[in-house]
């Protein structure tokens, strides 16, 4: 990576501005081939490339990772907890579970 001296005034930031230039990234690590990426934590970095390098150092120092994703935290949308509650507590649909159905023992394992 080359380091270019910035050529406009706007990049000469004060310290607090510099800190604000470090957005938060969520880190997802695939432990090994065949598994899903799982959320490992988060970190601050100025860009995706630096975030990936930092994620490698912070979350995979012991070969815990075969692959890493980093996603800007602001790009994640989620249910509010109250809405999620409706979702998880949807009841009365036991017929979606295999154990709802009575199969005679003589049929054997199904």
């Amino acid at each position, binding site marked *: 990576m080359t380091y270019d001296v910035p050529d406009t005034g706007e990049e000469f930031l004060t310290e607090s501005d510099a800190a604000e230039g470090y957005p938060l990234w969520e880190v997802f690590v695939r432990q090994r081939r065949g598994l899903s990426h799982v959320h490992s934590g*988060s970190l601050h970095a100025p860009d995706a490339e630096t975030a990936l390098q930092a994620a490698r150092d912070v979350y995979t120092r012991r070969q815990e990772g075969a692959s890493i994703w980093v996603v800007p935290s602001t790009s994640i949308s989620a249910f509010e907890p109250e809405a999620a509650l409706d979702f998880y507590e949807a009841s009365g649909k036991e017929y979606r579970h295999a154990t709802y159905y009575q199969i005679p023992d003589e049929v054997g394992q199904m």
Partner: protein
Amino acid sequence: MSAAAPIDPEARFQSIVDAEDKIEPTDWMPEGYRKTLIRQIAQHAHSEVIGMQPEGNWISRAPTLRRKAILMAKVQDEAGHGLYLYSAAETLGVSRDEMFDLLHRGKHKYSSIFNYPTLTWADMGAIGWLVDGAAITNQVMLTRCSYGPYARAMVRICREESFHQRQGYEILLTLCRGTHEQQEMAQDAVNRWWWPSLMMFGPSDSESSHTEQSMAWKIKRVSNDDLRQEFVDMTVPQAEFLGVSLPDPDLAWNPERNHYDFGAIDWDEFWAVVKGDGPLNRERIEHKVKAWEDNAWVREAAVAHGAKKRRETAA
């Protein structure tokens, strides 16, 4: 479901905690719970970061290349542990820069143990064995903390931390099986680190103002005195195997309690160090602030680079 009667948020919060479920960042939580966690997690994060200094002090003077590589890996782990913890604290709505600022201005504390000097190589052994051993005792409890991000950070930290304690014990074992001078160096380090390690668990239960509420919220699962006892019971046989003595004439097995009895802790010393009068309080913060300021240009350059890349992508 939206037609159901509204549930009191505090009752719902406590029922999640009582059911041993985890509280997650977007859940409603009492303001006191949030504040207690921010203070505790930040203090924990600062301890990991300041804790790099006493050991960093010996990287260039490690006795062999193997020991040097190990010590560097350990110090790097401490930096990583600090980052996991700052991230966990940030989920509660405080920024990392705010926490740095509070630390740099002396408004936030870190574990007092790191205000003691590391005088000899044997201190690397004593810190790994005793200081990390005490930290692990506390951290294993915290893996069961009610706040999800903190508990998850603790699981990761504990997994990495057992290497820290074992490498320290191995250093002392090597010294204790070495020359007479090496044995004396090991004993001297144990003499200096034993009492500060016991102080790491904090004030006695009778003096600890936060314990009761923290236990009800399941932030803390075991009291300071119980954790301290657990640590003593675990450590005394390890000291016997090394062949070092622990600097406490009152230390003795009590068959009735089924625990080791130990002598009174010097709480005057504890409070003096907490309040800023330990051997190295000022040096530790000065060093931290200097590193932060001297490296400002790196952060600024990284931000400028990121901005330039975004402009290139947009163009």
